[in-house]
């Protein structure tokens, strides 16, 4: 799965999160920060991660989620890493 494809999938997830600023979803990049750029409430990050697990068919380790950063690249990397682990 290409990196851009995962980012597009993340955007699709964010479209379902009503507390995210929807107007800012058009220009999502690796560098976009959920907290500072999208104004996502920090508590929602775990819901986004849960949705990502479902969408991409993976199950994250609790340690990985505890260490997860708040940028898009962080969750994209985690998805790729988890998929590679199989």
């Amino acid at each position, binding site marked *: 799965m290409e990196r851009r494809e995962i980012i597009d999938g993340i955007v699709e997830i964010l479209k*379902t999160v*009503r*507390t995210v600023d929807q107007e800012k979803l058009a220009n999502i990049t690796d560098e976009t920060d959920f907290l500072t750029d999208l104004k996502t*409430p920090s*508590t929602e990050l*775990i*819901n986004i991660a*849960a*949705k990502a697990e*479902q969408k991409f068919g993976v199950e994250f380790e609790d340690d990985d989620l505890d260490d997860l950063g708040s940028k898009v690249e962080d969750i994209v990397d985690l998805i790729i890493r988890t998929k590679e682990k199989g």
Partner: protein
Amino acid sequence: MEIYGRKVAVVGMGGAFPTCKNLIEFNQKLFSNQSLIRTWDQAESFGERTRSKVSGYITEEEMDLEMINSILGEIPETYIDKLNRIPAINLSTSDIGSIWAMLGALESIKMAGWENSEVQSEHTGVVVASCGSGNAILRPIWNNFFELGKKSRLGGVHGVDRTMTYREAANIGCLLKTKGVCESITSACATGLGNIGHAYRLIKYGLQERMIAGGVEATSIESFILFDSMRVVLSRGFSPQESSRPFDLNRNGFVCSFGAGIVALEEYESAKARGAKILGVIDEYFNNSDGDGDMFYPSFTGQQRLWKGLLGNNNRKPDVVKVHGTSTPAGDAIELLSVVDALGKKDFHISAPKSQFGHMLGAAGSVEFITALMMLDNQKVLPCLNSTNLNPELENFQKTDSWQGPKEPLAAFRDLLPQQTFDKEINSIACLNYGFGGTNSAILLSKDHS
């Protein structure tokens, strides 16, 4: 300590009421002697597993709300407010009851005419609570973890804020950005009135200038089932409209209902100075406990002490007593006799709003307080629907040697209990509510005559 001469006005009200879109419809239906109780399809869906089938319930659709549960099964991910009254960030931390509470708070503030600077002040507080424990949210979360074996995070991240005991006050406080007291006082079915009483004291004692106060009970089949399991607590065997029948000889339990009642309170002189419409003035609040060690059975002496505390030495006799009047066999008889013991047999009337919409549990006291405000405004007494036959015989407890109360049967007090709304000059109303654990609350409310 009370500040002598400092008074507390009610300047706004709002909430959620079964089968009613708004306060206007609630007012219209109540004062035309209608019942808001329906057969509940959810209760019926369990067949013989539930004893009672009627309720004064409110659906999400009726409140223009929709639950979104895209990944969490039965657990709400969030709610959508179809009328855009509540921002998404506040909906995400709320259960249904908290949303009703926020809507009631917004309605109350609009009616009160408070500016943002007044709301977002350290002199403005919130005291709102419910009786239940967020059961509708807890059940699917626990089922997800314990029965389905899913990870805790698949219960969603809002289990705590949606079920913590003071969730309604917290959500109102976050929505309004008030800076004063924010807390919940819970006392079972006296919760609604108890929170208004506590808020009254905070203003009366000079600790706050304005308060949002009240009680909530969100529609929850889980809460309904808890009461249904007690067998003799909920009403059964009558049509929905006849199920709640306080004081009637054939009453056999209360109707488990849901709703929200929120009011805006303000220091009286402040409200008058800005030209606010005064819906009523709270003259006194008193609460106590039975002290007899009984969790459920009401206490005549506890209620005697309640009346003494409420009326003090002022010889104030209310024109109307808005009773707790649940339609349970034990509670109603003790309550009617304690009212008669305190006020005599004439020159006042008894109103039992639960006869029209059932028992709203944590919301009962505050929604019924709103009905008292409406009685003051309309100058009409709300009825005791279905109080068709009063017991012509003495209650069993009246036949015991230890009984110190009135020695006449309930039927002797027929004239106090109107079965239809009627016109009356009403200057003051006593509001009574009690709860499991032997807790008793009373407010004396009067019309503003200035």
